[in-house]
């Protein structure tokens, strides 16, 4: 602070002397010879002196600045709080220190992220082993029965069918997990381009049509066939398909599923409404969790990956999904795709 003051005084002196010298220079004809001989050299000496002081102060400030920066970097490398740390001041050093610390934090974020990733992976492995355990145990049990008991042809067929169901479950789980791992590890690139949303929805509907027909569920789509939105058709169809699959699963026979598409200013909104069992408000967040199954959904087949995957796919395209529901009346999932 003191140095800054001296610097400012020196700068002021230099300025004043320079102005006086300039004035004296301009009016040198009118100035008495005697005084000009004294004033001009004095002013020049003053200017020189103040310039020297000014320059000293500047270089001192510069060296203080670089010392402070070095000290900050040293402190960060040693993992301690820097000395002379002034985070909230209107000075150059404060701004530079702030940015250095921000950079340091960002680097640390990378480390933290890989630590978090490792934890996520661990949780995933534990979740998977938990999910695989039951069908595998069942298959082992059925194999044991088939091998060690003499059974009638009819009973044999029954056990084989039960085994088939378990194998199908494992297969489905495997496929979903592959998709999730590809999505989470970023090993695939979403092809987000302008595509017909109508076609994508048609593709998704096709996948559930037969199941809906079986339960006499009416499926209606209200979408302008000319609607074009930036999205990856294959993965978006997968996301919408997963939501539709749930809708069919949790809607009782004779129910209704409605798809409405509304283009908005920034997003295109796709509402998928059903007349199913609904979701309680406190579980709106949970339904998107990996392997989450609501107690009332236990009766239905499923592993709890569909909506998790759907949200992941839509988020990766800079869109989002929200849900609104009334238990016992139905649910609306809204998918927002960025235009």
């Amino acid at each position, binding site marked *: 602070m003191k140095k800054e003051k001296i610097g400012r005084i020196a700068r002021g002196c230099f300025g004043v002397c320079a102005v006086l010298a300039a004035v004296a220079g301009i009016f040198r004809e009118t100035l008495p010879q005697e005084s000009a001989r004294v004033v001009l050299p004095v002013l020049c000496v003053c200017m020189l002196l103040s310039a020297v002081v000014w320059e000293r102060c500047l270089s001192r400030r510069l060296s203080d600045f670089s010392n402070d920066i070095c000290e900050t970097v040293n402190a960060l490398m040693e993992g301690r709080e820097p000395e002379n740390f002034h985070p909230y001041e209107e000075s150059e050093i404060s701004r530079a220190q702030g940015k250095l610390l921000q950079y340091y934090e960002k680097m640390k974020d990378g480390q933290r992220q890989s630590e978090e990733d490792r934890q996520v992976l661990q949780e995933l492995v534990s979740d998977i082993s938990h999910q695989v355990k039951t069908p595998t145990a069942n298959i082992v049990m059925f194999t044991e029965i088939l091998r060690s008991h003499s059974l009638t042809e009819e009973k044999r067929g029954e056990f084989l069918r039960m085994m088939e169901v378990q194998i199908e479950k494992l297969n489905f789980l495997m496929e979903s997990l592959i998709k999730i791992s590809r999505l989470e590890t970023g090993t695939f690139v979403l092809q987000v381009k302008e595509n017909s949303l109508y076609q994508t929805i048609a593709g998704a509907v096709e996948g559930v049509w037969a199941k809906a027909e079986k339960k006499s569920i009416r499926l209606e789509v209200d979408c302008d066939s000319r609607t074009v939105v930036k999205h990856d058709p294959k993965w978006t169809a997968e996301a919408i398909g997963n939501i539709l699959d749930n809708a069919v699963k949790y809607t009782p026979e004779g129910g209704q599923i409605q798809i409405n598409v509304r283009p908005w*200013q920034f997003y295109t909104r796709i509402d998928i409404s059903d007349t199913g069992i609904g979701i309680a408000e406190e579980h709106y967040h949970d339904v998107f969790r990996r392997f989450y199954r609501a107690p009332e959904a236990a009766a239905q087949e499923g592993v709890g990956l569909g909506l998790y995957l759907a949200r992941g796919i839509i988020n990766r395209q800079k869109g989002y999904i929200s849900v609104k529901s009334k238990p016992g009346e139905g649910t609306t999932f809204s998918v927002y795709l960025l235009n």
Partner: protein
Amino acid sequence: MNIVTTHHLKKYFGEGERQIRALDGIDLAVEKGKFTAVIGPSGAGKSTLFHLIAGLDEPTEGTVIVDGTEISGMTEEQLTIFRRRKIGFVFQDCALVPELTVRENILFPMALDHMRPDWTYFSEITGLLGLSEKLDSYPKTLSGGAAQCTAIARALIMRPSIVLADEPTGSLDAKTGQNVAGLLKMTAETFHQTLLMITHNLELAQLADRVVHLRDGRIIG
């Protein structure tokens, strides 16, 4: 890692029988890089919490730590700089300067801090928020959505530690509100920004990674 931590945060207004306990012991932790929504009915203490975290008001009791610094010990001047550098604000009414263009409004915090703008980052933000064509327009010519997008861009430009949004869609119709909330989430995610949104709208809160329910000055879940 938490960007914001509050310990037993209390804020009372008035005294004696007329005392109003706006916040009554809030322990909140906002995780870095995540989107947290604080939801509650009006009078739950949401705005008071917002003001305390932003250092716009002092707590009756308790502490607020933002990015490792306890803000109660700061002088008014330090608080001003702290808010400028560490917090990006998105208010309900946008709070744009009418005399400045969209570009100038977005760069305003940088000008206050004598910082040279990072033009690549600037065009990335404005591109994502659909403002590239409107940079020379004045706030009064903008739609409600575009004005709020300008406010979002302004909040992000300093790469703050946290973006605080207080009912960012409060003055918009439902449709535009959903659009703007989506963009807020999307841009925060794109630039790995921590976002704390205060709202009474359950539909908007769903966009968050974590929802904190506030009622009568307490966290209920």
